[in-house]
């Protein structure tokens, strides 16, 4: 009986991915990659991969010599490479770069019901989701001038007036690959005080105008990126 190099390589691969899933849970970083609908994949992946690693560890010895092929060695490197990237880089979320290349939430299939909008606190997703439904839009118009507080990051281009910016947040259904942007135009902000991708909390009165939501800012404060940077449906 001798050690099988091939099985050792498989154990390394399984163990690396199991380690990544445990790391995501331990550091509470799952929300940087998955939505609340799919975050169960991380604990399930961690447990099953750990069991698979242990199962493979228990049968590492082989009656005949099993060498590792060159392609297998590089395959291990390739599969472990994403694990290294996630572990080594600081947590990040989609930015204004992504907002310029993706579809927006208000054109997507999400709608907010008129009942939800009639009373209670309004969220950025509620307001943007109302733009596609006539009933919801009427309910939203009834609340024009209400006070709102939204959190998101700043997106602006060279044509944006100095005291305006677009407050943006991404909504993900499964993972970051399907992100849709949720936007509100903020007016009356301190001129030149905010840069692209800075996270801010905006308080003020909101007004639906055509296909846009305008927030007349009373207060704009820089904040840290939220622990859950994406909205979920």
């Amino acid at each position: 009986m001798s050690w099988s190099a091939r099985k050792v390589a498989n154990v390394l691969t399984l163990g690396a991915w199991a380690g990544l899933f445990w790391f995501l849970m331990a550091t509470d970083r799952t929300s940087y990659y998955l939505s609340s609908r799919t975050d169960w994949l991380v604990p399930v992946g961690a447990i099953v991969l750990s069991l698979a690693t242990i199962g493979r560890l228990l049968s590492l010895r082989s009656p005949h010599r099993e060498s590792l092929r060159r392609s297998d060695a590089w395959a291990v490197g390739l599969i472990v490479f994403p694990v290294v990237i996630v572990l080594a880089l600081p947590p990040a979320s989609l930015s204004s770069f992504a907002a310029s290349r993706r579809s927006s939430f208000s054109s997507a299939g999400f709608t907010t019901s008129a009942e939800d909008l009639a009373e209670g606190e309004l969220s950025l997703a509620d307001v943007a989701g109302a733009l596609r439904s006539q009933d919801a839009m009427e309910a939203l118009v009834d609340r024009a001038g209400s006070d709102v507080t939204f959190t998101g990051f700043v997106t602006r281009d060279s044509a944006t007036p100095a005291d305006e910016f677009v407050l943006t947040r991404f909504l993900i259904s499964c993972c970051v690959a399907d992100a849709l942007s949720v936007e509100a135009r903020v007016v009356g902000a301190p001129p030149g005080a905010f840069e692209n991708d800075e996270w801010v909390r905006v308080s003020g009165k909101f007004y639906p105008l055509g296909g846009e939501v305008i927030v007349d800012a009373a207060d704009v404060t820089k904040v840290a990126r939220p622990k859950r940077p994406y909205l979920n449906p």
Partner: protein
Amino acid sequence: MADIAHPLPPRTVSRAPLYAVVGALIAVAALLQFADPARLPAAQNFVLVFSSLLIEAMPFILLGALVSAFIEVFVPARMFEKLALLPRPLQLPASAMAGMAFPVCECGSVPVARRLASKGLAPGAAVTFMLAAPILNPIVLASTWVAYRGRDIMWPMLLGRAGLGLLAAIAVGWVIGSRSKTEVLRARPADVEEHDHSHGGRRHAAFFGHLSGDFVFMGRYLVFGAAVAAALQTFVPQSVIGSVAGAPVVSLLAMMGLAFLLSLCSESDAFVAASFVQFGVGAQLAFLVFGPMVDTKLGFLYTATFSKGFFRTVVLTVAGVTLVGCLWIEVLIG
């Protein structure tokens, strides 16, 4: 059990490549410690999409490998041989409908289909199952319903997706016809893992051998596919296809092309499809039928799993059925 005939002989080497790989990974990790990806928004976007695609898809590959290993070790081959004796007109729809009981996205169904075919199920039926499962499973249908809820095209989208998905999967199975598993499945490199069982090894060792072998084998192609999909998402803005929204056939082809590039999970693609309001029912439906069967990451997985020409067969057949079906539905609904 021997998997596929003519396994490629192993090229044994010294330990040097393994050391080189480990060294390279450590070097990458060290370099990334000093990198500031936020200064390169495109790079940051690429890394985020790439890693999130993999974090979501790897557990499904694992689930597929788990089911595949279970089938290999615990399900007797004679069961599939009996199924293979059923007439094809019955076998293909039954395989497609079996997909309803397998609620995973497209990545998980590939290793299962390979195992089913290698155990004796007709390859056409196994492929039909593989293509139908990501569309017909209840989670995907429910997410489609949620995405289009409140819109007057909800039922055409839901029923159209299920119906055309079923048709396209059966059509591919039909085209593959009576080809044998050696003609359809690609020979793997000498798969030492899979000899555990046949050499009298214990069942649990064989099970974990197949599980880890399938995970590692499919995983490497998934990494390639996710990298290409992330690059396309980063460098090709979704607005580029907006200019063809009004063109009858071109808009359908554009949405099928977009589905191919984006490589979204079938459980979430309906939300993205619904955001293309400038496109008609047919084009949005084409996105939802074509994408779960043919996309960038699946291209890599199919090429690794099936023989030369298989990917072309799937692309042409699925595209044909999707195009004709979606045009017909668009004409019908207006």
